[in-house]
């Protein structure tokens, strides 16, 4: 493609305060840009991303009839959207913009002013040559199915489902077990206000079951998910109890909320706690069971005089999980209260690392537990307590040996029952869900949000949302808040009826495609489908993230990455290799 000679390009060099201008001679870069072909104006400004900066660009476009814009500033990750908006504001197609990253990839990483300025000039040159090749692209809109798939029938899943169904949309709720409720169904009271977990759940469960817009699939799992945001197809497979021909149903949905929750840490992995070997070393969930039954007693049927609660079992340790499971501290304090109120003669020792009482009412709860004469004993993260059987002369069943940090003493704690506060961990089958829905997991197996601060319930896959303890350990209020947030995000999309998709995606040239299907397997977003009847591969543009893998892999060069065409990239490379003559005004040291 020939360079158009009648283009009018505007170049804007940002100082970014001193971030850029301190190392890069922005004025020299602008002056240099001015000399390049087709550049009609080049300006510098303190903060180009500010409102006056954007308005300046928009005004220049209108007044000088610019048809291409280069902004030399930060990474496009940071402000490409901002400057695209400026172009739209001036009535110019937003894809006729190119950014030269002279901050992250230039001023921040270089110390030599002369070299940095030369590099900035080269980057601007490359951007100018590239932007000449840019084409005006149009974004697409696709229909949005109003149905939603919620995976997981715990407090998060039910809350999200109810929120969506109450708003008038149909929800498929898939639960692997034969009942709703999830992990909360296994606990007695909640901290710090002693609300009954059963009461919290009963209302949710009965409403979910009876809601006319919720179809609850118990004993079921999602075996396949295909399609893209707004137009997913999910296969729901019933694990037992139904005739073969009814086992699998296919549903049409627009969005998915994943609320698959957590599993408890397997305490037997820590051998010196003796879990599974010593009968009265139990996990927090086993104690919950006793509390729900209203009877805390040892396996021998005796009422324990000394109960020791060990915190951070499986959490905050390099060997297992380095993260904090967040709910165990308050749960442990809750146990101290419950045990004390059931049996005032019982002495509770809380063997902890640090007391994490960060939430609403938690610090007060900690204080109340102190008032209830709970003995707090602090141990070292690196030196876990060791539990062994007590001698015949002792008035207790077991002895916990630990180095106590606040007193500096090596101590023995008497115990008739030891409660291990097992932490939360990502479910063993979380990777199946991740694979199915094409979302990522972090090193601990938790699902990854698309932004940890600003997009806590969205994922990098459009239309797939995550909420609750499948994302990270959290307590009930946070889980419920996330479930409602995910529902709100989905509702916002459904209410628009359509969804806009970025115009940057790959396209298959049907004349060149040989149907080799190389690209089909390589696509990390499952965005390429093979059309059997035509024998050709086809990119589902709404799923495509424009990573370019298919473009590079195609042996017939049949795939074009829109906005990243060969012409554009080659022109950019040409610009980079232009030798720039530039000397500093002041001598180089």
């Amino acid at each position, binding site marked *: 493609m020939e360079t158009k000679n009648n283009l009018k390009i505007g170049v804007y060099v940002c100082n970014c305060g001193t971030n850029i201008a301190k190392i890069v001679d922005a004025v020299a870069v602008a002056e240099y840009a001015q000399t390049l072909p087709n550049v009609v104006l080049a300006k510098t400004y303190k903060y180009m991303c500010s409102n006056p900066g954007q308005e300046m660009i928009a005004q220049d476009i209108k007044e000088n009839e610019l048809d291409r814009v280069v902004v030399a500033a930060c990474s496009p990750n940071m402000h490409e959207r901002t400057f695209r908006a400026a172009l739209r504001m001036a009535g110019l197609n937003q894809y006729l913009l190119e950014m030269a990253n002279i901050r992250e990839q230039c001023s921040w990483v270089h110390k030599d002013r002369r070299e940095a300025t030369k590099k900035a000039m080269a980057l601007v040159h490359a951007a100018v040559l590239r932007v000449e090749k840019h084409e005006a692209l149009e974004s697409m809109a696709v229909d949005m199915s109003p149905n939603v798939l919620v995976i997981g029938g715990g407090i998060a899943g039910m809350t999200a489902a109810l929120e969506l169904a109450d708003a008038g949309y149909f929800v498929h709720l898939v639960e692997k077990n034969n009942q709703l409720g999830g992990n909360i169904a296994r606990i007695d009271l909640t901290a710090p206000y002693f609300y009954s977990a059963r009461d919290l759940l009963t209302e949710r469960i009965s409403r979910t079951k009876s809601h006319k817009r919720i179809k609850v699939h118990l004993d079921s799992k999602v075996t396949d998910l295909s399609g893209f945001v707004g137009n997913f197809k999910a296969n729901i497979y019933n694990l037992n109890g139904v005739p073969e021909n009814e086992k699998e149903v296919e549903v049409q949905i627009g969005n998915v909320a994943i609320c698959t929750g957590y599993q408890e840490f397997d305490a037997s992995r820590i051998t010196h706690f003796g879990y599974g070997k010593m009968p009265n070393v139990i996990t927090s969930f086993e104690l919950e069971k006793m509390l729900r039954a209203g009877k805390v007693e040892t396996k021998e049927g005796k009422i324990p005089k*000394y109960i020791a609660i060990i915190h951070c079992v499986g959490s905050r340790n390099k060997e297992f999980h380095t993260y904090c499971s967040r709910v165990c501290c308050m749960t442990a304090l809750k146990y101290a209260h419950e045990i004390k109120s059931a049996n005032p003669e019982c*002495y*509770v*020792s809380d063997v902890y690392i640090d*007391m994490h009482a960060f939430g609403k009412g938690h610090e007060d709860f900690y*204080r109340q537990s*102190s*008032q*209830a*004469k*709970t*003995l*707090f*004993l602090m141990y070292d993260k690196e030196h876990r307590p060791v539990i062994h059987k007590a001698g015949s002369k002792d008035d207790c069943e077991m002895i916990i*040996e630990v180095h*106590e940090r*606040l*007193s*500096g*003493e*090596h*101590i*023995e*704690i*008497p115990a008739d029952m030891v409660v291990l506060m097992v932490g939360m961990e990502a479910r063993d089958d979380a990777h199946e869900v991740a694979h199915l829905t094409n979302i990522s997991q972090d090193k601990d197996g938790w699902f990854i949000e698309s932004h940890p601060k600003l997009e806590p319930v969205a994922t990098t896959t459009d239309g797939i949302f995550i909420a609750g303890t499948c994302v990270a350990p959290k307590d009930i209020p946070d889980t419920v808040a996330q479930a409602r947030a995910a529902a709100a995000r989905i509702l916002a999309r459904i209410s628009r009826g359509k969804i806009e998709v970025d115009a940057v995606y790959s396209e298959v040239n049907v004349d060149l495609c040989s149907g080799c299907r190389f690209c089909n397997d390589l696509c990390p977003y499952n965005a390429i489908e093979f059309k059997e009847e035509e024998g050709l591969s086809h990119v589902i543009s709404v799923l495509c993230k424009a990573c370019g893998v298919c473009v590079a892999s195609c042996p017939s060069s049949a795939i074009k990455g829109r906005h990243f065409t060969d012409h554009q990239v080659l022109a950019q490379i040409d610009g980079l290799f232009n030798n720039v003559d530039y000397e500093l005004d002041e001598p180089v040291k």
Partner: protein
Amino acid sequence: MAIRVNPSFIDDLSRYGAEDVQLCYQCGDCSTICSHADDIYKFPRKSMRQLQMGLEQRIETTLEPWLCYYCGQCSEQCPREADPGESMMSLRRWLISKYDFTGIARQFFKSKTSEILAVILIALVTGIFLMFYGISGGSIHIYDGEGAFLPSQFIHKFDLTIGSIMAIFLLINSIRMWYFTMIKGVLIPVPWWLYLKELYELPLHFFTQKRYAECESNGKQHLHMPWLIHLGLMLGYVTMLLLVLVFVEPLQAGPEIRWSVHIFAYMATIGLLSGTIYFIRNRFKKNYTQYKKSHSTDWVFVVLLFFIVLTGIFQHVFHRTGLYEWANITYVIHLMAVVPWLLRMPFSKWAHLAYRPLAMYFAAIQKAAYERQELLVDSVSITIK
């Protein structure tokens, strides 16, 4: 060697007055504000921790509770309202009962009924004995000299007997204190000459209570009031005790006033009277932190002492004004209070008269011993067991 935690200790100690110990989360504010805490004696923080954990073996060997004079600043400062000052007080009570080999102190501290019953019982026995002795050998109309209801020679012997019993118990308990704190509690060798070198500490602290004064020096109002009053009370008490044990005959003789003895008695009475009134008033008004929580034994202590002082004064006045019958009856009542008071001494709060200066003395020896070991250079490596 691992040390056993005793979670039930806290319940035991609540009988001695420590109620809010478990609220403490070991921030250390109390030790920061305390003018007596130092690198070696890290109280109240360390004592609070030992108390929380029920490390009896550690507590029985510590001197820390005796180094605290309870100015109350730590309790005012405490962000958790764990009342470290009162906890130190309760540890002193616990230590008194720990040093006491008879178990009587423990009984008195844990049950106010038993203490009051014991006081009443001894008072009654004393009263009956004295009435019987007086009626059989003398006349109610004669106070001193020939045919006196309670002759001073008899009272002298009587006082010495009671005093000796008390002294024996106190001596044994003090030896036990020495054993716990200096033998069990110190793991480094303590050369015998350090006991001589630091001996001056004993009378110094006994007669000046200078640490109490230091305690108050950074307080807010009434700077030296508690110290001065307390010192007056203590000196008055010791003077009176000496007079009663050694000079009871000239003291009781009359009707003229023998200034050579009586001047001391009057001054002692002023100290005792102002002291007891001051402390009773404070315990009623609860105007300072240290008087907010009064253990039953504290009340028995001040009220009984006040009663003794009062009956002593009345008896003296009746004698000098010629109301001999009244003087004799008051004398019996006076002694009915004095005898249980004296017999109670080694088993009660009173014993701090001996334990506190001893603790200062022992602490000085310990410090000298540590210095000698050059352990003070690296204070981190010091662990006082």
